[in-house]
């Protein structure tokens, strides 16, 4: 199968869906001629024109609000939020408006919009351009949250998101835009709420989101050399969450690590770990272990930044200790 970058996969998904549905449009900062600073949207304005690939002023709350209104009245906006950190600016429009309108109207009004944004540290972009804020939106009922872990997922999930009748937030890992993966030429969609078992194993389950899937897979390779077979699972969407696939795996392996690049405390790993603990309690040899980013603002200095996020070595290390029973005694 041909290989394309995550950036190209996103671009293809957008182009295909915009061809398919004339009510779709892209709105955001420097999305047209510039194609975003990450160049993810290059070429789209040439095909669809500036009426459907709309450059906005630097008004995140404003253009998010416009998207909500357009979505409520018959269009399907795809919002480009340049950095995930800017979510803090649009929370009211996203969480007080978009997320609640369908419910508050008793099902009468829909808000079919997609918010594409990004996440991920180690780009030396410091505290306001490095956050992974998926936990915040996942907490708000009415929003769906997708976290593609490769070009394949990025395309399939985005297409599903665009056709979904609800507000969907997609977090792309900005360090993965140039990573290639096999992506079929034929059209495909990836349903929400279906986890992907990336690698089978019997000894331990590594549940990882987005950027952390690669980290888990690398850890699994290291572990395999030592005879530890790790199962790696990518939930793909954290809302809805495919709890069953995760639980089934953990019941089989009896040990689990949950890895996510958001801050650890009050983050994604807490939800997944506590659901697993609840549903697989009597199958577990040890409590589910959580690995998130450190609970510190992301520092600029490379030497500091690198220690804030989970690495394959750290995951493998924890997995080894879990499998050796070391943590069981420690607990």
């Amino acid at each position, binding site marked *: 199968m041909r290989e394309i970058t995550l950036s190209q996969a996103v671009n293809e998904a957008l182009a295909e869906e915009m061809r398919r549905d*004339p*009510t779709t*449009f892209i709105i955001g900062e420097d999305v047209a001629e510039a194609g975003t600073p990450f160049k993810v949207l290059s070429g789209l304005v040439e095909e669809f024109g500036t*009426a*459907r690939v709309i450059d*906005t*002023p630097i*008004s995140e*709350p*404003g*253009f*998010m*609000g*416009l*998207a*909500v*209104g*357009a*979505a*409520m*009245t*018959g*269009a399907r*906006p795809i919002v480009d939020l340049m950095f995930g950190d800017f979510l803090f600016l649009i929370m*009211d*429009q996203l969480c*007080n*408006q978009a997320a609640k*309108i*369908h*419910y*508050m*109207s*008793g*099902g*009468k*009004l*829909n808000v*079919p919009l997609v918010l594409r944004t990004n996440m991920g540290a180690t780009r030396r972009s410091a505290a306001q351009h490095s956050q992974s804020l998926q936990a915040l939106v996942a907490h708000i*009922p*009415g929003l*769906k949250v997708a976290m593609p872990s490769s070009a394949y997922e990025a395309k399939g999930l985005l297409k599903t998101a665009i056709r979904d*009748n*609800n507000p969907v937030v997609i977090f792309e890992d900005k360090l993965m835009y140039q990573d290639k993966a096999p992506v079929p030429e034929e059209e495909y969609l990836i349903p929400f709420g279906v986890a992907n078992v990336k690698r089978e194993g019997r000894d331990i389950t590594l549940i990882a989101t987005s950027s952390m899937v690669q980290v888990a897979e690398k850890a699994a390779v290291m572990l395999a050399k030592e005879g530890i077979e790790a199962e790696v699972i990518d939930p793909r969407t954290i809302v809805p969450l495919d709890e069953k696939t995760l639980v089934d795996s953990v019941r089989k392996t009896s040990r689990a690590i949950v890895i996510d690049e958001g801050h650890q405390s009050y983050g994604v790993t807490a939800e997944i770990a506590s659901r697993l603990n609840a549903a697989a309690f009597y199958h577990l040899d040890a409590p589910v272990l959580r690995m998130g980013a450190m609970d510190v603002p992301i520092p600029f200095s490379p030497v500091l930044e690198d220690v804030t996020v989970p690495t394959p070595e750290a995951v493998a290390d924890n997995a080894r200790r879990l499998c050796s029973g070391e943590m069981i005694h420690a607990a």
Partner: protein
Amino acid sequence: MAEQKTNSEDYLRMYRQMVRIRTFEDNANQLYLSAKMPGLTHMYSGEEAVAVGICEALTDDDRITSTHRGHGHCVAKGADFRRMFCELLGKEEGYCRGKGGSMHIADQSHGNLGANAIVGGSMGIATGSALRAKLLGQDDVTVCFFGDGATAQGLLYEVMNMAALWKLPVIYACENNGYSEYTRTEEIAAGEITARAEAFGIEAFKVDGQDVLAVNALTQKLVARARRGEGPFFIELETYRYHGHHVGDINREYYRSKDEERSWKQDRDPIVRFRGWLVEQGVATEEEIEAMNAEIEKDASDAVAYAEAAKYPDMSEVDMHVYAD
């Protein structure tokens, strides 16, 4: 009054709609005071000429966004008493199946995109509705209602900038009733409100919000121009709310005098003024008007009774409508 008699039917409908709003509010207030209505609510009484003058210039395809003080907009845009009262009482037959209540009432069938409990929260929505119209080549116009207090929200300036850059068919209707909660407008708004819109290159107008014909005439013109792509526009409507900020705001003297309230009610009531004009111009007789009023009152009390007897949503509805299919 701004204009000579040209169309009695329109005038009578405007009058009717104003009285319907006032009557709706009186009943809602009564429901609240007798502890039959849950939650909090904000009365529109006194501001009827604004909602009616504007909404009478719109079709069902035109959209509005409303505010926490939203009953007036809802009635003016064509909503039905029964379904409104049902919503206020949290009943299944309400416009939002009881899930929205007073602060979120929406009426999709007449283009009311909903009240909003976030002050200024619907400014983006209204502008986005206008963007959609332009994008899809539809010729409807969207009116964004908001108060003087809401002009302090930065969102307004973000969306006015985009509306002006892209010439969107949206009309910003600022209902300046002199107060935001318990604070006078002068204390929270520096400079001139209309100047703020003009700074973005938006044509802005000030109009007496107690004069339904003046409001309607201006809006007619602007809606027509907006349909032709000459928008956006901004209107500041000078008006007054008769009740407290919300139904529980009874002792108001620390922020506004009884005299002030009395003078607005006695000298500038939009319904009384318009009624006088209708009679004077021979559009309707006193008797016809009284009959109309009585009929509306009956409609309202029937609707209240209906809503009181109506059933609550089934408990199973609690987790329905979180997500659309």
